[in-house]
């Protein structure tokens, strides 16, 4: 079996349609939307089109879980024991079990909300962050950045379930959120252990995480203002082991990503 599987070789059946972040960032409607006062972008039941926005996000969670499974799965296989300790691979294998359960839960939540598999396009930027050749970078890209984003998304969906009174959604998101906190903590612990005598490698890994976190902010998708559909979940990130400084840094990266996207759209028009 091939090691270091590129994103275009991920196994998908004919239901899935691939898209790229650039398709979204360069959409000619973005600037026009920016000129309108649409009010809060937060995902709340009282906002317009809340049901379809929630279904869309739920499908994004579903494909994200598939890619998280693929990312953790690759780490169990891509590295020899001298590159990544066997105990780390065991943790990644346990994470695979969690992620596959999350995929199943997400499919059932999609059924509950009336969403079909493949109804929405899939971007594979999550998996792309899991293709780093250094296992320490993988820990930062997958366990701290990707799973950190998962904490923010699950918390947003959990709050949506709570505020809409949907008992199924709130319950399922809460359980998956608990797993994600564990995954982030696992990544943080392994990052410390594997770089304790190598500060240069640690800094390189954290720099990679900053890049990925900015990418995962998706030009304003995540942040801490009313303009951000996904809110940074400070409390759960803190439980997962992120320091306040680290969370502040992610918040700033998210704000910067929004400014960059706005400048990109303005420059292209």
């Amino acid at each position, binding site marked *: 079996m091939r090691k270091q599987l590129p994103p275009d070789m991920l196994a998908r059946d004919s239901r899935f349609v691939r898209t790229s972040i650039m398709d979204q960032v360069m959409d000619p409607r973005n600037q026009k939307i920016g000129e309108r006062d649409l009010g809060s972008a937060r995902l709340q039941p009282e906002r317009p*089109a809340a049901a379809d926005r929630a279904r869309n996000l739920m499908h994004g969670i579903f494909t994200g879980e598939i890619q998280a499974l693929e990312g953790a799965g690759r780490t169990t296989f891509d590295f020899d024991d001298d590159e990544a300790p066997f105990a780390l691979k065991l943790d990644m294998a346990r994470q695979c079990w969690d992620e596959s359960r999350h995929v199943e839960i997400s499919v059932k939540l999609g059924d509950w909300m*009336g969403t079909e598999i493949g109804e929405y396009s899939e971007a594979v930027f999550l998996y792309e962050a899991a293709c780093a050749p250094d296992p320490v970078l993988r820990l930062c890209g997958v366990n701290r950045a990707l799973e950190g984003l998962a904490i923010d998304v699950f918390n947003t969906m959990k709050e949506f379930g709570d505020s*809409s*009174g949907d*008992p199924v959604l709130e319950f399922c998101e809460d359980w998956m959120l608990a797993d994600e906190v564990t995954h982030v903590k696992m990544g943080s612990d392994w990052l410390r252990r594997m770089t304790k005598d190598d500060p240069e490698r640690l800094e390189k890994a954290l720099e990679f995480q900053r890049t990925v976190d900015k990418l995962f902010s998706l030009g304003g998708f995540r942040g801490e203002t009313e303009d951000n559909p996904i809110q940074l979940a400070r409390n759960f990130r803190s439980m997962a082991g992120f320091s306040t400084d680290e969370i502040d840094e992610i918040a700033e990266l998210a704000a910067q990503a929004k400014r960059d996207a706005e400048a990109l759209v303005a420059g292209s028009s």
Partner: protein
Amino acid sequence: MSVTLIPAEFTLVKFDADEVRAIIDRTIAEVSFPADVDVTIEVDEVLPHPLTASVVEIVDGAAKLWFTGGCFESPQRQTGLSPDNTRVELGAGLLRAKDRLVGGFENAPADEELDERQRTIWDAYAEGRLAALGYPVRVQRRRYTFRLYGGFNDLADAEFERLWSGASLTWDELATMADALAEADTRPERKKSIRKESLRRIAPV
């Protein structure tokens, strides 16, 4: 009857206006829309999927339907047209316009004055009829929206099944159903969603 599509050509999305006009003509025929009523379909192409919203009004005997571009957009291909979604959204809008003209909803308030629960009941009533006509509607999608605004409880589920299985309805009956759902909804008031904003209100005229 005259049928007008606004805009005549799309510039921000990759919708073929001729294809949209063909879908409109086909849908008008399939829902047996009154032949003597002029129809205007306005699409706000700035608002993307999943920002789905529509408004139906009768002005001087003519039907005016407004949709976000997201109603017609393919969720799989950004800025691309989804013929199936377009048929369903147009069909539901035309049925609601027909209801206002000759279907027992002549006394219904304007769309923007409906609360979310009333609107959700009406949408389910319209899509249930489209399902009977063989349109590609998805019952679970509509059921979820119905629960979101009608309540996650047995009464809401029973009323939804009644609507979906072909019950006929007037505005007065719809208003009664909305009141009954509100009565049965045990969620705190803040969870009984009443939409305050309208996407159309912020759109340029």
